Each structure stands twice: as structure tokens, then as C-alpha cells.
């Protein structure tokens, strides 16, 4: 939303890696494991993505929504804040904050169309109620910065615009992790460029040196991204269909533990 990241509330709100991905005590009591917690967050990120596709919003609205979603669960429990309602409400809030409002009734309509599972379906009043709760949970800090703009500028500067497609996809996938809550967006962009250049066998050492950024941070972020892919491949075992049904089962089991609705 704003042009200057360093003076923003987003910058001041960055967390330490230890502060994210911690299962809330209330959820823990219900038996939610860290793996399940992570899985639900990935699953709901995908849910936001799919709903967003239906109502046709810009990429940054999706990214902002996912950031809100992940930020909420560094502070609140999934037991009290049903992720299936929080996810679309984050999208609703993000669409307003990014000045491309999506009507609540449209969201409700498309979710009903998309989701046969009754537990994902909500009424307008549920979304409006959750909107107020989320504003408090987010402490009304709504300005979020994303790696996309920095990515394009950096690729231009590095004369590597041929990596745009692959690194853009990598940035998209970082939202399946909590990286956006921990690192400045341009560092995430750099990590994605770094991975893309390695994948495409591009020599970038000199360029990175010239940037004078902390390469350790870039490499840490890169490792996290690669770990994310690896964990998925691990669960995958090369059989996409089996993976899909297996994760669905896992997610349902995890959500059932929280016993909501």
C-alpha cells in the first residue's frame, strides 16, 4: 500500500523465526501437532488462492490476505478463530486495504459454489463479524509489503529478466510458508532470484557481491524455501493422486481435532 517499507508498520512488525509456527496453547491442548498446524496453513493459503481466482483480484491482494492470515495465527488459536472463516475474511479485508473491494456476498456465493463441504460455507454476517475480530487481532496494522515489485526491479538491474517467470513462481510459493512475517520483502525476492539462478545455471556471484546484502540471510531464506519443496516431495513420493487424498485426509483430521462449528 505505501511506498516506503523501512518506515512502515510492516517493517516494525517483523518477527523472529522462533515467534512464528508456534502452535497456540489452546490448539495444542486439543492435540494439534506442529505438522498439522503447518499443513492447515498451507491448505488455507491454497483456499484463499482458489477463492481469489473466482472473484478475480490482483496478486498483491492475495499476498496481503495470506499475510494477514498467517499473522493472525501468531497471536490467536485456530480453535477460537476458525481458519475456514478467517481465510475468506482475510481476503475480504485485504481487498479493501488494497483498494479493490470485493463484495462479501460475492465471496459467500463463490465459496458455496466451490466447496461442497458445509464446514467451509458461511453467511455474510459471519464474514462481517470476523472482520471486526480480525481488525483487533491484527491491531489495525494493515499495510503490508510484498517481494513482487522488488523482484522485478532487481531482475531488471541484474539483467536477468529471463528469470522472471521462474522466480515469480518461487515468490508465490513463499506464501505457503511464514517467510513474509520474518524477512523484509526484498530479501525474499533476492532469495528467489538466487534459487532461480542456481536452477538455471546462471552466474550471479558478482552481482550479489555488488549488492552488499547479507548473503547469509539470503541463503537462510533460500534454504527455507528449498526445505518447503523437499517436505512436499517427501510426502509426495511421486504419486500426485495419493498425495492429494492423503493430505486431504490429514487436513480434515487436523481440523476435526479443533472441533469447531
Amino acid at each position, binding site marked *: 500500500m*505505501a511506498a516506503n517499507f523501512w518506515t512502515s*508498520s510492516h517493517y516494525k512488525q517483523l518477527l523472529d523465526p522462533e515467534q512464528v509456527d508456534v502452535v497456540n496453547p489452546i490448539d495444542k491442548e486439543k492435540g494439534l501437532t506442529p505438522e498439522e498446524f503447518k499443513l492447515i496453513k498451507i491448505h488455507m493459503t491454497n483456499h484463499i488462492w482458489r477463492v481469489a481466482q473466482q472473484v478475480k483480484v490482483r496478486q498483491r491482494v492475495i499476498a496481503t490476505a495470506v499475510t494477514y492470515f498467517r499473522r493472525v495465527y501468531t497471536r490467536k488459536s485456530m480453535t477460537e478463530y476458525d481458519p475456514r472463516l478467517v481465510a475468506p475474511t482475510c481476503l475480504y479485508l485485504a481487498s479493501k*486495504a488494497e483498494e479493490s473491494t470485493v463484495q462479501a456476498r460475492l465471496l459467500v456465493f463463490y465459496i458455496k459454489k466451490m466447496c461442497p463441504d458445509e464446514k467451509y460455507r458461511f453467511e455474510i454476517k459471519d464474514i462481517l463479524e470476523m472482520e471486526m475480530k480480525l481488525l*483487533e487481532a491484527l491491531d489495525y496494522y*494493515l*499495510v503490508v509489503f510484498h517481494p513482487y515489485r522488488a523482484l522485478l526491479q532487481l531482475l531488471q538491474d541484474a539483467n536477468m529478466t529471463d528469470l522472471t517467470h521462474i522466480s515469480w513462481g518461487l515468490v508465490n510459493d513463499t506464501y505457503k510458508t511464514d517467510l513474509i512475517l520474518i524477512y523484509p520483502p526484498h530479501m525474499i525476492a533476492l532469495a528467489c532470484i538466487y534459487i532461480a539462478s542456481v536452477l538455471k545455471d546462471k552466474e550471479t556471484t558478482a552481482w550479489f557481491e555488488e549488492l552488499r546484502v547479507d548473503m547469509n540471510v539470503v541463503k537462510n531464506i533460500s534454504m527455507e524455501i528449498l526445505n518447503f519443496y523437499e517436505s512436499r516431495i517427501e510426502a509426495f513420493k511421486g504419486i500426485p493422486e495419493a498425495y492429494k487424498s492423503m493430505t486431504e485426509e490429514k487436513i480434515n483430521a487436523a481440523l476435526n481435532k479443533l472441533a469447531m462449528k
Partner: protein
Amino acid sequence: MDAYEKLEKVGEGTYGKVYKAIEKNTGKIVALKKTRLPEDEEGVPPTTLREVSILRMLSIDPHVVRLLDLKQGQNKEGKTILYLVFEYMDTDLKKYIKSFRANHSLIPSKIVKTLMYQLCKGIAFCHGHGVLHRDLKPHNLLMDRKTMMLKIADLGLSRAFTVPMKKYTHEILTLWYRAPEVLLGATHYSTPVDIWSVGCIFAELVTTQPLFAGDSELQQLLHIFRLLGTPNEQVWPGLSKLPNWHEYPQWTPKNLSTAVPTLDTNGLDLLSKMLQYEPAKRISAKKAMEHPYFDELNKAYL
């Protein structure tokens, strides 16, 4: 909302009432801005969200009104209400100017200077954070009569800008302080629109009269042209391509001092830099702070 007790209604904002209130625990006087959520099914209005999130970011500068807290409450019908809790300021620039005008007296030039410096500083801060105000006017500038502290308020219409600039809705500014590019229908405008408003406020502080008091967009333009001369492609390249531009009566520029006779040379120079036709030539808020007009101020205390 039990933490505050309303004392009196002090104003009606763009989208809600403003009350003077007391924080029961501390006895502190605050301003409560009440935002009733609309009856329709769209929750918190985007304008409110925008103001809140921008204030969350800017409310750390001494010249931006401080947002102390946000509270959710319910009215008698059970509808949700959002309260923005601001520090209380006892007056605004509109009332302040009016008090002098009513007495047929002028605001002492030293006070004009200190108010102008704070205004430039606050605007420089907003612009530095990527935020345009877009609705600067004396009514939106809060003041403390005792300390002569000035604070920018009502950022409801402001929005963060990104470069390159996109199209903004242009039915926004109060006519009197509206920049010519906005009046002429420019869709790509930026920080200079705020500087134009600052220039108009500057002149009004000096004379206690609005500089360009038009009652329609056309009248507003003609007021401007009458003083500064009808602009042309030489003084403002690209002018003729603006959507609302057509042939206007031709006036030659008058000396600015005819409009603000009591302003000194440095002040006139600064004012003329704020009222440049071509937006890119208009002085920035940051540069304005360094202008010799402010040299005699003790800036350390502002």
C-alpha cells in the same frame, strides 16, 4: 467503550461524529471519532480502513494527529461502531484564522511562520512515507493555542501512493485549495497537489482571507488565472493535453504581493514556488523547510 465518557460533540467529520471525551482512568481529554458502520452488507468502509492503517503508520510524527487507540463498541440498536481515539486539540486553523478575521486583525508574522514550518514538516513526513493527504485545508489542521503546535488531521482521503502513479478519483479536494492540475482533470497527480494547498493556506494565514475562493470548478480556475495569469504551454508544458483544458480568458500574471501585501520578500518567494503551475516545478515540502523564509525560526523546538 466504558473507558471513556463523552463530554460534548465537537464536530462532524466526513463519516462520523467527533466528541470531546475523558478517559475515566486517567482523566485525560481525548477526541473520539465515531465511525458508524453502514447498514449495507459491506462491513467497515474502505475509507475508514485506509485512514486507520495510514494513521497506524504515520501517527508517530509530532505534526500528524496522534491515534491513541481504537475501540469497538455497539450502539443501542446493537450495530457495531468503531471509535478512533485521538489526542485532543483545542482548535483548528479555520477557527484560528476566523478569530483574527472577526477582529479585523492579522496573525503575527512570526506565528504564521511557525505554523507554516510545522505544516511543511508534517507534509514532508507524510510524503516521505508515501502518503498523499489530498484534502489539506485549514479545517483539517488542528492546533493547540497555548503551544502553537500544529498537527495534520483527517487523513481519510489520503492514500498511499506508489510510483508510477495511477489514476485516483479526482472529486476530492475542497475547491479553494485544489491544485490546477486536479481542476483540469489530470489523472496522474502526486505530492505537488498537497503543496498547492499548502501555498493557499500560507496566503490565507497572512491575509486571513482565502486566496482563491471559487464556488465551482470553472470559477476556481478563473480565480487562479486572474492572479497568476492564464497558463500556456510555455509555463506549463503538457497543459493543453489535460482533459478539462479549453480556451480561457487571457490574463497576464499579477505580482503576488498584490494578493498578500504584508508578506516579506522571502515569504513571497516561497509562496511563488508553492504556486507554480507546472506540478514538477512546485517546491517539495522537504525543500520548503530549508527555504530562507524559515531561517529566523528556532527549528529545534518544532
